Structures are given as C-alpha cells and as structure tokens.
C-alpha cells in the first residue's frame, strides 16, 4: 500500500483493479468497459445500416433485426454513453474540486461493477436464446407478448446496471456538496463539475421511475402480476409514462456532462474565460428542471388529449431557451479569444453547428401537430443521432483527446486525431442528415426492410456509406490509442499549455492520493489565476503537509455484484418449469450479496494513513 510499490506483475495489476476504490483507476475501468460496449453497439449499428443499404435486403432476418436495434439503442445509451461520461467525470471532477477522492470510494467501485455486470448480463442474451426485441423503449404490450427470455434479460440487466448508475449519481452529488477544497464556492466550480452535479441530480430522480417500471415488467412477466395486462385491469400506458419520465431526463443526463466537457475545452483553446459563467450555471439548472416536465412529448400520438399535448408541447419548446443561452455563450467565449485548433477543439467546433441542427429539429418535433407526422419516422432517428452523436459522442471523442494526459500522462497523436475527426464528422453528417428526408418521405423507423422504388433507395444507401466513414474514424482512434500506449512519452503537467482549472495544476503522474496538500481556491479558473500571478507551483495551499487518510481497497463490491448477477439468472429462469436449479441460483446469489453486505457492515473499515514523512519523500507519482 505504499507509494513506492514498483512494477507489479500482471496478476497483481488485475487484482489491483478488481479491488480498487481509487477514482482515477475506476475512471480507467469505466473507459475500458464503456469502449467495449461502444464498439459492440457500433457493430450493431453497422449491421443495421448494412441491412438497410438496399431495399428488400435479407442480410439479417426480421426478428434478428429487431434484436439488433433494441440492443443497439440499449447498449449505446446505458452501457456506452453513460459509462464513458462517468469515466471522465470520475477522472476529472475530484481533481477539479481539489478533493482526495469521491465521497464514497467503496460505493464508487460498487457502482462500476454493477454497471459492468449488468451490461454483461444483458449482452449474454445473445448467446442464451435471443436478445430483447421490443425496442429500447420496450413498450409494454409488445414486451409482454414477446416470447423467449430476451425481455427478461433487458429488465434484469438494466435493473442491475441502473442500480449502479443511481449509486454513482448519489456519490457524485455528495462529493460535490461536501468535498470541495477551501475557497471553492459553488459559483467557482468549473462547469464540468456543475454539469456533473446537475446530471447526477437528474439520475437521482429519473432512475427510480425506471427501476419501478422494470420491476413491474419483471413482475408481470415472471411473477404473475397484472400491471400492464389490460384484460386484468392493467394499463400499458403506465409503462410508457414511466419509461419516458425516466427516458427524457436520461437524454439530459447524457448531454449535460457533454456540455460540461465543451465548456472546459473551449475556454482553454480560446485562451479566454468562459463567457457568461453564471448564466451557464443557471441554464444548466433550468435544463435539468425543465427536463422533468416534458416527457410526454414522446407520447403525442398516444391519445393523451389536446390539452396534455399542448402543455407538453409548450414546455418542450421552452428548453430551447436555456440551451440557446449555452450555445451563444460558447460562441462569445470564442469571440475575442485566441483560438487554437487542436484535436479536442476541433471536436468542440464540430459540435456547435451539429448540435444546434439536432436541437432545432427537436423543437420542430415539439410542435405536436408536426410530430403527428414525424413521430416514429426516420426524422426522429435523425434528430436524436444529431444530438447524441453530434453532442455526446463528439464530446466523448474530444474528452478522450483532451483528458488523455490526465488519465495516462501521455498525449494522443494530434495529426491522427485530426484525421479521425474528419472521417467521423463527415460520416456522421452523411449518415444522419439524409435521414431527415427519409422520415419526411414516409419511412417509419424500426423497419427491417422497405420496398424498392418508393423513393427511399438512394438515400438509404448514402446513409450506409456514411456509417462506414464513422467506423473508419473509430478504428483510427483505436489505432491512435495503441500507438500512444506503446510509443507515447510522458507529457507532464499542463500539456495543453493553457489549462485553467485545478486538474491541470496537479503534478504528473498524479499521485494516488491526489493533492499532497489541499489546495486553496482563490477564484474561478484557479490554476489560471495562479499562473497569471507567476506562481510556479501552480497552486496555493490551504494547509501544511500532514498525514493523509486513505480508504482500503476492497473486493467486497465485486463479490456483491457477482451475487446479484447469479441471482439475476435465478429470477430470470424461475418461470421455466424445466429449470429447477433457478431457485437455488436465486437464493445462493442473494445470499452472497447479503453476506457480503453484512461482512462489510460488521467489519470496521477505517482505512489507513500515509504519513507526513512518506509524503515529503514522494517526489512525484506512484508508478
């Protein structure tokens, strides 16, 4: 446990990662797992596009196609985009606020393993009799009718992963509320921290409805309840509401941290303070708040009545205002600055017009009568990929380049990075721009094929070609990562030269205890202030060097999750008469989980201290 532990064996490294509670290592775990799922989701996307490349194609069958789109949507949203954002939130936020770690390191690890094994659980459905096939929205009439275990995998897998997300969300909130360094008032927090905070609050309130909805689904399918069975008094519209009360805030859970990432990148490479900081904060909160008032815009055609539709239409449109504030603030940050187009900045620049284009189509859909035409057509697919790929995926790619030095003390290759951008960006617009017109021309979404000569052929082909461009982009990025890990040189502190916030001030490689002394925050963009005042150390300190208290590593989170994983299988197969072992699995699994919890609460885990002398000797990082 000392900071001088050198060169570990492979096994020891694995064990280290299985038991780690260090936010920086958990960030790396999130990055790896998220990338894995992103590639899986991306391959599924490619299969979709190949199938739709020409009319009457039989590359995949109808049933399989539905499984693919369901898994594509579910994987991308829950298992790729969110964890990748969590990776950067974990890596950056504690450093930005000058904290030693998150508030509950143990729960941080638990959250990760829940997400990871939940994702594995969901994806195992491919091998165990078929994936879910009712769309990522899993509307109840169809998801109750769907045969096989696909939907059960969806419900149980998301339940496990969702619990992880909820835990991580609470963890971030407490971290940000309680662990800020002295001087870091709320209105001095960097925007990445602010957006993490608000997104976590959205998680807190959005995930419970999903949890309950999934329980209803599980109960209906496995334990004989009747929430959605209309012959028994149930009502499928309840599922739709629950799903979207979760689902709409979910898209802001994704996009707010992405906004945060851009709000960090743009000031650095414009070498200028973020314009309108307080209005950015205000807009973030407002978007979060409004995000809960608009869910029914996904249900305009359900027949909720004119009044409900009108109210939700207006509420939805209102979100354009705070989002617009953000866009114009970014533009004004660039205005009058000194813009250097590095790879992260390139992504940020690509983001602005792309996201605005996606956002305004959202507002078009918000006009309920127009949405009667657009709903469930490819126009919707175009809209949400514009905001998701143009907003979130570009942010993730930008952050990968931007924060790589913080996570790995290396710089990704800039030239290759720019080439990646060109492929990905062109591919993105090629794929999705044309889908607006496919939708308007009468192509519904979630169709595994379409008839020839209905005017849809060429556009679909173009869209598919675009997807291949994106794939090339992603592959280039992977190559870049591999090259960098083999040949990259340590890059040291503040490699971009214009870092403004605390995470750039910390020496590289970052010691496992983060800050040797808690920093003193003297204003917004602390590091910039110190630099401007000629402080060579980059930080002022709030306290003298003294002992640091650290939490112990723990294997318990992993065990707890494995227990749930096993229990999940038990619950899932419980309905099959021919699988008597399922009950055993359920009980054993739960026993493992509860056993681990009891061990955890009976054993006093007080952590350990790094002593002052060791700290003084420690010149740099812990590698």
């Amino acid at each position, binding site marked *: 446990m000392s900071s001088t532990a050198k060169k570990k064996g492979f096994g020891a490294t694995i064990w280290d990662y299985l038991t780690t509670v260090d936010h920086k290592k958990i960030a790396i775990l999130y990055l790896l797992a998220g990338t894995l799922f992103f590639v899986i989701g991306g391959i599924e996307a490619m299969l979709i596009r190949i199938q739709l490349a020409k009319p009457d194609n039989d590359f995949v069958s109808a049933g399989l196609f539905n499984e693919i789109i369901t898994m594509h949507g579910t994987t991308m949203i829950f298992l790729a985009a969110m964890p990748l954002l969590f990776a950067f939130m974990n890596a950056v936020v504690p450093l930005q606020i000058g904290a030693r770690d998150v*508030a*509950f390191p143990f729960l941080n690890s638990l959250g990760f393993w829940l997400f990871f094994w939940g994702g594995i659980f969901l994806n195992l459905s491919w091998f165990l009799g078929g994936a879910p096939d009712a769309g990522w929205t899993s509307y109840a009439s169809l998801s109750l009718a769907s045969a096989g275990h696909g939907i059960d995998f969806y419900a149980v897998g998301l339940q496990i992963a969702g619990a992880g997300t*909820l835990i991580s969300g*609470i*963890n971030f*909130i*407490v971290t940000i*509320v*309680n*662990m800020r360094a002295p001087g870091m008032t709320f209105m001095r927090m960097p925007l990445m921290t602010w957006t993490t905070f608000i997104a976590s609050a959205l998680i*807190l*309130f959005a*995930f*419970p*409805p999903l*949890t*309950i*909805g999934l*329980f*209803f689904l599980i*109960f209906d399918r496995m*334990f*004989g*309840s*009747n*929430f959605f*069975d209309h*012959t*028994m*008094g*149930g*009502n499928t519209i*309840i599922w739709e509401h*629950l799903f979207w009360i979760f689902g709409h805030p979910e898209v802001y859970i994704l996009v707010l941290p992405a906004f945060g990432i851009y709000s960090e990148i743009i000031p650095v490479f414009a070498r200028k303070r973020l314009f309108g900081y307080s209005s950015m904060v205000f807009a973030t909160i407002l978007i979060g708040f409004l995000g809960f008032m608009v869910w029914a815009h996904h249900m305009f055609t359900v027949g909720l009545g004119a009044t409900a539709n009108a109210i939700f239409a207006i509420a939805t449109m209102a979100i354009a205002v705070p989002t617009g504030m953000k866009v114009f603030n970014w533009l004004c940050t660039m205005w009058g600055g000194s813009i250097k187009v590095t790879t992260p900045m390139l992504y940020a620049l690509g983001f602005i017009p792309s996201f605005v284009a996606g956002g305004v189509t959202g507002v078009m859909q918000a006009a309920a009568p127009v949405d009667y035409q657009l709903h469930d057509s490819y126009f919707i697919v175009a809209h949400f990929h514009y905001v998701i790929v143009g907003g979130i995926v570009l942010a993730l790619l930008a952050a990968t380049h931007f924060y790589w030095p913080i996570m790995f003390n290396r710089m990704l290759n800039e030239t290759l990075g720019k080439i990646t951008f060109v492929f990905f960006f062109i591919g993105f617009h090629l794929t999705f721009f044309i889908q607006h017109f496919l939708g308007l021309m009468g192509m519904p979404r979630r169709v595994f094929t379409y008839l020839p000569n209905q005017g849809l052929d060429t556009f679909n082909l173009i869209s598919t070609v675009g997807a291949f461009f994106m794939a090339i982009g992603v592959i280039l990025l992977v190559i870049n990562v591999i090259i960098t890990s083999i040949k990259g040189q340590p890059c040291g502190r503040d490699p971009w030269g214009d870092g403004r916030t605390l995470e750039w001030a910390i020496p590289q490689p970052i010691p496992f205890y983060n800050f040797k002394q808690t920093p003193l925050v003297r204003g917004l963009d602390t590091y910039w202030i110190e630099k401007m005042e000629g402080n060579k150390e980059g930080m002022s300190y709030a306290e003298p060097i003294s002992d640091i208290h650290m939490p112990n590593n723990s294997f318990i989170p992993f065990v707890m999750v494995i227990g749930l994983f096993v229990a999940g299988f038990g619950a899932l197969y419980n309905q099959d008469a021919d699988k008597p072992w399922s009950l055993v699995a359920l009980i054993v699994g739960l026993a493992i989980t509860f056993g681990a919890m*009891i061990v955890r*609460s*009976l054993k*006093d885990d*007080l952590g350990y201290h790094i002593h002052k002398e060791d700290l003084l000797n420690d010149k740099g990082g812990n590698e």
Partner: protein
Amino acid sequence: MNLKSKFTPQSWPEHPELSTAEGKNKVVGFWIFLGGETVLFATLFATFLALKNKGPSGMEFTTQNLFELPLAFIMTMLLLTSSLTSVYAMYHMKNYNFKGMQAWLAITVLLGLGFLGLEIYEFTHYVHEGFTFSQSAFGSSFYTLVGTHGLHVVIGLAWIVLLMVRNAGRGLNLYNAPKYFIASLYWHFIDVVWVFIFTVVYLMGVIK
C-alpha cells in the same frame, strides 16, 4: 479517526453525526438518497391511483369493501409512536447515553415488529378472501405499494437490530454515531411514507 478514543458526555460533540468528514458524507448522502426514495414511492402511489379498483370485468373487490379502518388506525399509531421513540434514542445519542439509546431503539424495534405483524395479518386475510397479487391490476398495485413499504420496515428493523448487536460491546463513538443517526432517519422516512399510505390508500379508499 480513532475508534478507541474515549469520550465523556462533556467532550462528546453536540452533533456527533456531523463531526467527522465521513459522518457528514453519510448524512448528506442519505438525505439525497431519501430524495430519490420520495420519487420511488411517488411512482408506486401514482400507479396505485391509476389502477385502483381496476380488474377483470366483474371483479368484486374494491377499496370500499376491502379495507378496514380500525386496523389501519392501530398500525398508524404503532408506527407513529415508534417514530417518537427513535427521536428519544437520538436524544440520548447526542447526550452520550449509550444505554438509553439502545433501550429506546429496542422499543422502536418492538413497535415496528407489531406493525409488521399486523400488516402480515392484513395481507393473509385479503389473500384468504381471494384478493391476491395476481388477481387483478388493483391487487398488483396495492400489494406492490404497501408491500414495498413493508419491505422498508423489514430492512429498517434489520438494520437497527444489526447496529444494536454490533455495537453493544463497544459503545458510542464517532464512527458509529452517524450510522445510528441515518438509521433513525430511515425509520422516520418509513413513517412519512406511511402517513401517505394511510391517507391515500386507506382513508381515501373507504370514502364512498
């Protein structure tokens, strides 16, 4: 922090649950968790309200002919009182009176067990009458709402008992004080939810 450091009532801090960084995190974190729980229960209430009295055509069960107020009243009294007793327990915790705290917690647990017993009695009674979880959408939503609350009671009881047993030999310290404190928060929250259950489910249920 040192487990062994001994306190006297004088040196025991006024807010023991907040006087360590871990304690602060726990308390704030737990409150935030309760914010989430609020939404979780709201979901169940909303579903119950939407599915109340809905069932297969010709269903005989309604809130009016099912629920009995006297039982609900007794359950309410038990739970409300247990809320007060846990306030007493926290009062003693802040006074560094370990025995007093444990004693009041024990009373709390007994009251909770009483509540639980009545609830089990109520459920079995309904099941005997034929009103089951899978009998109708109404049944599903009723048992899920009230049952989830019941599950919270079970967890709360188990939690408090575990704390009492675990710390019986070691007394109060700054490591376990926050744990006691949030367990009592949890218990109050269970009571808060029950207030809405007896109002929305039982009282509003029997109104003609």
